[in-house]
């Protein structure tokens, strides 16, 4: 889909061309390599009829992929959620938002590109869009600080949310961060306060807001944008209080126990839906969002539209109180 705004992509289409495989995808990788080999042979004019064989192998690869992804462990999901080719905030913006017009700066100290935000059009209607961007190339990753925001990022988010509220424009947030950035400057300028205010700003919104956890929902850095009327999660995204590695190094004093931590902490969309921490799961195409970004992003678009449909016609007070009550109810009935 063409971009309609002045917003530039970090990496137009490039990351999706060459496929990289995760360790547990090895059986699929082997099958797909074989398919490629056969294709090359067919192109090379080999006399043998190999069309059937290719189709057979492709079907087999598809099935292996579907089987693997139907039974991902929490740790494998963590790897999928962090997959470098997984669609990021800018991709969602390009696919779902027309006229996207990013706005910069917190009007206090600076501009933090770890959080991108602005106004645009979602299915014809004005929306405010905010989210963490991890970056797809080395240069972009550095510019976006790997999606780890400093206080300025959260203060910009607050500024945009207050603006959206004033103009009666609903808010969509795309959450994808390992966490807020731990650094001297960030602490100096009040990282904790900035996150707390951003969470508070979410709760103060008299317009509906929908948060989508598209990759990693890392701790306070995520909740600052994910305190929403509807919280949706991609099927293989993760959302947790601390990274599996962090939990492993604190609780087991051994960061190599990250797999155990991932399993113990219940970080998958399926677990979180069971705990009513999230409101819905957005299905991913077979093999994960990175296999077919367009399909994943379309599914997200439909889910966001449905969520806003649900919230239509409510007064600002109702919207605020429904949101507050929803969060207060979490954990009271388990």
């Amino acid at each position, binding site marked *: 889909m063409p971009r309609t705004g002045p917003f530039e992509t970090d990496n137009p289409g490039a990351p999706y061309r060459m496929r990289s495989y995760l360790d547990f995808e090895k059986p699929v990788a082997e099958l797909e390599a074989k398919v490629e080999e056969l294709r090359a042979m067919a192109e090379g004019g080999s006399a043998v009829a190999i069309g059937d064989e290719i189709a057979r192998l492709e079907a087999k690869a598809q099935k292996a992929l579907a089987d693997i992804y139907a039974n991902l462990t929490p740790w494998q999901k963590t790897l999928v959620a962090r997959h470098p080719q997984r669609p990021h905030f800018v991709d969602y913006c390009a696919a779902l938002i027309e006229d996207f017009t990013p706005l910069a700066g917190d009007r206090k100290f600076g501009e933090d590109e770890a959080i991108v935000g602005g106004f645009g059009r979602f299915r014809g209607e004005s929306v405010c869009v905010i989210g963490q961007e991890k970056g797809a190339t080395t240069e972009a990753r550095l510019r976006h600080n790997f999606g780890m925001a400093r206080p300025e990022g959260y203060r910009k988010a607050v500024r945009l949310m207050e603006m959206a509220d004033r103009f009666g424009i609903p808010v969509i947030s795309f959450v994808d961060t390992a966490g807020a950035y731990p650094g*001297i400057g960030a*602490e100096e300028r*009040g990282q904790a*306060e900035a996150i707390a205010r951003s969470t508070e700003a979410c709760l103060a919104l008299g317009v509906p807001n929908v948060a989508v956890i598209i990759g990693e929902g890392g701790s306070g850095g995520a909740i*600052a944008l994910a305190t929403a009327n509807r919280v949706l999660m991609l099927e293989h995204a993760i959302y*947790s209080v601390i990274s599996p590695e962090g939990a492993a190094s604190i609780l087991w004093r051994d960061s190599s126990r990250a797999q*155990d931590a991932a399993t*113990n902490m219940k970080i998958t969309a399926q677990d979180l839906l069971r705990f009513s921490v999230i409101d819905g799961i957005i299905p991913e195409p077979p093999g994960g969002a990175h296999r077919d970004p367009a399909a994943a992003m379309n599914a997200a678009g439909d889910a966001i539209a449905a969520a806003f449909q649900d919230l239509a016609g409510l007064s600002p007070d109702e919207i605020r109180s429904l949101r507050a009550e929803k969060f207060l109810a979490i954990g009271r009935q*388990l």
Partner: protein
Amino acid sequence: MNWISDVVRPKIKTLFKREVPENLWIKCPETGQMVFHKDVEANLFVIPGSEYHLRMAAKARLASFFDGGTWEEIALPEVPVDPLKFRDEKRYVDRLRDARAKTGAQDAVQVGVGTVEGSTVTAAVQDFEFMGGSLGMAAGEAIITGMETAIARRTPFVLFVSSGGARMQEGILSLMQMPRTTVAVRRLKEARLPYIVVLTNPTTGGVTASYAMLGDVHIAEPGALIGFAGPRVIEQTIREKLPEGFQRSEYLREHGMVDMVVHRRDLKATIARLCRLLMKQGKPVAVDRPAQQQPALDAAAE
């Protein structure tokens, strides 16, 4: 079966277990000087001389804050125990049991209502002794209950906080306490009641990134470690040594995150004065102290 495997271990030891107080002498973490524990207790757990502020248990804190050392304890809601069935090197249920045995408390936060220099105040204490004061479902509910109590009784809400952050053993449900407590903070503010946060050593993580940094007034005890990311995490991330005094109370005051750094002995008078001013109450008729000290004003006038 033989006499080797059947041997009964003598149990005399447990029968005659004596209650020996372990810490008769307390070592000052700063200067290393040894101080008799009674002197420390009498001095509100501040080391005489070095003025190092030791951590204060919940009950002692409330006793030092409320008039006459008495208060009404507010009943706290029960929460589901260990919904994640969490297990690291130890089972979470075992850790909880140990913490309860050690502290005699159900969880990290306790709430009381009492008078402070004659005015009614609702106060909560987040006690570091209970699993590092970590914020889980029970602590979250306790904070919410405390704020709701303040609203119902139209009193200011004072929170003495000390916490390492979220309780990881409760996973995402501990993270959810950040927005949940923020809902309660908003209600307290809508009710136009003062919310005073006293940051004590240490306060970090998700606790600072929610209710602990949303007060009307932030007071810090001297030398307390206060920050979002712990110093070790920052050092590992940036691979640099951190500056002296980084993330300490005085540093936070300099950077505009806390209003004042107040010595423990002056906390009660400072908070009482603030509450009276914000609640538009007159000066108290009789005060314990003849000459009222105003250390906060001195500090502000630097």
